[in-house]
C-alpha cells in the first residue's frame, strides 16, 4: 500500500531549551485529510512540536517539513500554508470580530469585503449579532470561531491546533470538533495538541501520546475505544506502560 504524502512531517526532531530536552527524536507525519491528535501531560512536548512547525523555535537537530519544505529555511512561503489556532485565540480587544478577521486576512495576503467577512464568521458558527461587537465582549468559544474563520479563509494546507477545546463547554467543544473534522474532510491536514481524550477520539484519525518529549505510542484512532484510549493515556502518565 502506498503511503500518502505528508503535509506535516517531523524527522528525528530534537529541540533543546538550554539543558532541557523538550523534544527527543520525534518522528511523525500527518497526511492530507488526516487529523492527528497529540496527547500528553503538561511538559510532554506537544506545544513545542507545534511551535517548531510555526518556527517559534528552531530544531536542535532533525527537521520539520510542510509539504516537503522546511519552514525554517523558507518561512514566508510555508507560513502561507499553515493556519494556527492557539488555546486562547488572541484577537484585538478594541476591534470587532469582523475587523479582526479582515485585519488578519489582509496580513495573510487575502483581501475580503465586510460582507464576505460576515459570511465567513457565520459559517464558523459565530452568531450574526456578535459580528460587529468588540472582541473584548466575546467568550472563549466565540473567539475560537473567529480563529477558525481566519484559518478557513487562508485556505491553508495544514492546521495547527494547540489545546483548541480547552475551556470550552461540551456543546461548543463538540461543535468545534465537527468543524475541524469538516476541514480535514475537505483535505486539510490537522495536527492538534490536546488533553481532551474525548475530543481526540471523536475527531482524530491518528493519535500519538507524548511523554517527556518522546512520542511513546502512536495508533489509529478508529481502532481504539474510549476506555482503551483512557487506559493507554493513564498508563503512560503514571509510568506503567
Amino acid at each position: 500500500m502506498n503511503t500518502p504524502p505528508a503535509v506535516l512531517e517531523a524527522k528525528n526532531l530534537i529541540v533543546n531549551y538550554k539543558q532541557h530536552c523538550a523534544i527527543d527524536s520525534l518522528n511523525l507525519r500527518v497526511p492530507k485529510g488526516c487529523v492527528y491528535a497529540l496527547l500528553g501531560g503538561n511538559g510532554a512536548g506537544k506545544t513545542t512540536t507545534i511551535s517548531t512547525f510555526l518556527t517559534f523555535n528552531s530544531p536542535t537537530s532533525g527537521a520539520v517539513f510542510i509539504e516537503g519544505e522546511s519552514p525554517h529555511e523558507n518561512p514566508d512561503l510555508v507560513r502561507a500554508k499553515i493556519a494556527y489556532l492557539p488555546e486562547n485565540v488572541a484577537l484585538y480587544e478594541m476591534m470587532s470580530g469582523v475587523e479582526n478577521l479582515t485585519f488578519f486576512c489582509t496580513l495573510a495576503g487575502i483581501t475580503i469585503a465586510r460582507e464576505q467577512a460576515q459570511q465567513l464568521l457565520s459559517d464558523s458558527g459565530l452568531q450574526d449579532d456578535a459580528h460587529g461587537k468588540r472582541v473584548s465582549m466575546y467568550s472563549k468559544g466565540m473567539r475560537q470561531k473567529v480563529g477558525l474563520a481566519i484559518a478557513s479563509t487562508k485556505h491553508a494546507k495544514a492546521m495547527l491546533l494547540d489545546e483548541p477545546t480547552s475551556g470550552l463547554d461540551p456543546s461548543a467543544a463538540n461543535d468545534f470538533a465537527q468543524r475541524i473534522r469538516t476541514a480535514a474532510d475537505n483535505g486539510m491536514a490537522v495536527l492538534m495538541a490536546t488533553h481532551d481524550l474525548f475530543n481526540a477520539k471523536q475527531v482524530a484519525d491518528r493519535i500519538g501520546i507524548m511523554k517527556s518529549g518522546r512520542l511513546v505510542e502512536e495508533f489509529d484512532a478508529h481502532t481504539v475505544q474510549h476506555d482503551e484510549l483512557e487506559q493507554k493515556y493513564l498508563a503512560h502518565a503514571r509510568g506503567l506502560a
Partner: protein
Amino acid sequence: MITAIIRKEFIATVRDGRLLTLGCSLLLIFIGFLLASTFQLQQLRQEKESVGITAKEQWNTQSVKNPHAAAHYGIYVFKPDLPVAALDSGLRPFIGQSLWLEPHKRNLERFNPSADDILANRFGQTTTSFVLYALLPLLIVALTFNSVSQERERGTLRMLHSLGVNANALVFGKLLGLLAAFSLVLSPALIVALILLQQNFTLSVDDLLRLTLLLLLFLVYYTIFVAIAIAASAYFKTSRVTLFCLLAFWLGGVFIAPRLGAVAAQSLTPNPDAKQFWAAIKKDIDQGINGDGSHEQREKAFEAQVLAQYNVSRKEDLPVGFVSLNRQFNDGYSVRIHALHFDRLRDNFTLQQHLTHLASWLGPSLAIRSLSMTLAGMDLAHQRHFEDAAEEYRHYFINLTEDWDRGRSHGTERGAKGEEADWRSVKDFDYSAPDLLFALHTARLDIVVLLLWLALALTLLTLSAKRLTP
C-alpha cells in the same frame, strides 16, 4: 500589509480610553497655558510699547539744556517679542525686559521677572512649551509602552508571526499608526494655537514659517519618542520593565540632562559675578589694555594731538569744545573695553550653552527645548542680536549729542545748549527681530542633534524588529 497595520493601530489606540482621557486632559492644559501666555505676551507687548512711547516723549520734551546733560537722561529701549513667544517664553524670565542707554556705560538688561518672582517658582516654571516637550512625550510613553509587549503577553504576536507578518512592517506600521492617533491630540492643539495667535497678533510670513518649522520639529521629536517606546516594548519581555525604562528615559531627557549639563557648564566655564565684571571693565578703562597707557596718559596724548591738529598751544584757544571732544575720545575707548568684556561674557554664555547641549546625548528634550526657544526668538542669539542693535543705537544718539555739544562750544567752556527740536530729531530705535534664516543658522547644531536622535530611534526600531519573537 503595512497599511492594514497602521489602520489597526490607529483604530485600537483611538478606541483605547487612555488616549481620549489623557489626550483631552493634556489638550485642556495646553489650551489653558496658551491662553495665559498669549494674554501675558499681549500685555507685555502693549506695556513695552506704551512705556517706550512715554519714555521717548519724556526724552523729546526735555527742557533747554546741555546736550550731554540731556544724553544722561538716557533712553529706554525694549526687545520686541515675536508672537511665537506665546508658545515659548524662553529666557524672558531670566533676562531683563529693557535696556537703559546712557553715555559712558553700556548696561545690562533691567527688570528680569525672575528677580521679582516668588522663590518656589525658581525651581521650575510650567509653560506652554513644557506641555509640548515634557508632558506630551509622557502621554506617548503612557500609550505606547506596551505596544509590542502587550501583543506578546496576549498572544497576538504569535498569531501575527504565524501569518508571516514582516517584523519591520509591524513595528513601522505601529509607529505610523500611533503617530496618526496622536495627531488627533496634536491637530486641535495646533488649530487652537493658530486661532489664538491670529486673533491676538498680526502674524507675518516669518512668524508662520517659524510656527510651521516648530511644528515639524516637534513632530520629529514625538516620532523619536514613539519609535523608542516601540523599540523598547519589542526589546523587553514585559510591559512593566518597558514602562520603567521609558520613564527613566523621559525623566533623564526632560529633567536630569538639562540640569546636569547646566551644572557641568557652570563648573567648567563659570561666569564672573556682577561686581567682578564691572570692576574688570573699570580697571581696563583706568589702566588701559595692550599698551594703550593709563587713562591720564591717553588723555594727555589726545590733548597734545588735538592741540597740534588745530595748531594752538592751549585748550582754551580751540575753536571747538574740547570737553566734548575729550569725552568722545574717552567714550570711544570705553566702548571698546565694554565691547571686549560684554563679548567675552556673552561668548561664555554661548560656550556654556554648547556645553549644556553635550548632555543632549541623554535625551532629545534638550535639543527641542533649545530649538523651541530659538524659533520663538527667546534665546541667547536673538537676545545678543537685540543688544548689539541697542548698542549701535546708543553710539548713534550719544555721538549726536556730542556733535551738538562740540559744535556749539569752544575751548574749555561748557555753554553748549540743545532744545526740544534737537531732542525730537533723534531717530527712534527701530528694531526688527532677525528672520528665520538667522534662527536656522543659530539652531543648526540642535537640528543636527534632533535628526541624529531620529536616526538612532529608527535604527533601534529596525534592530528591535530583528529581535521580535513571540
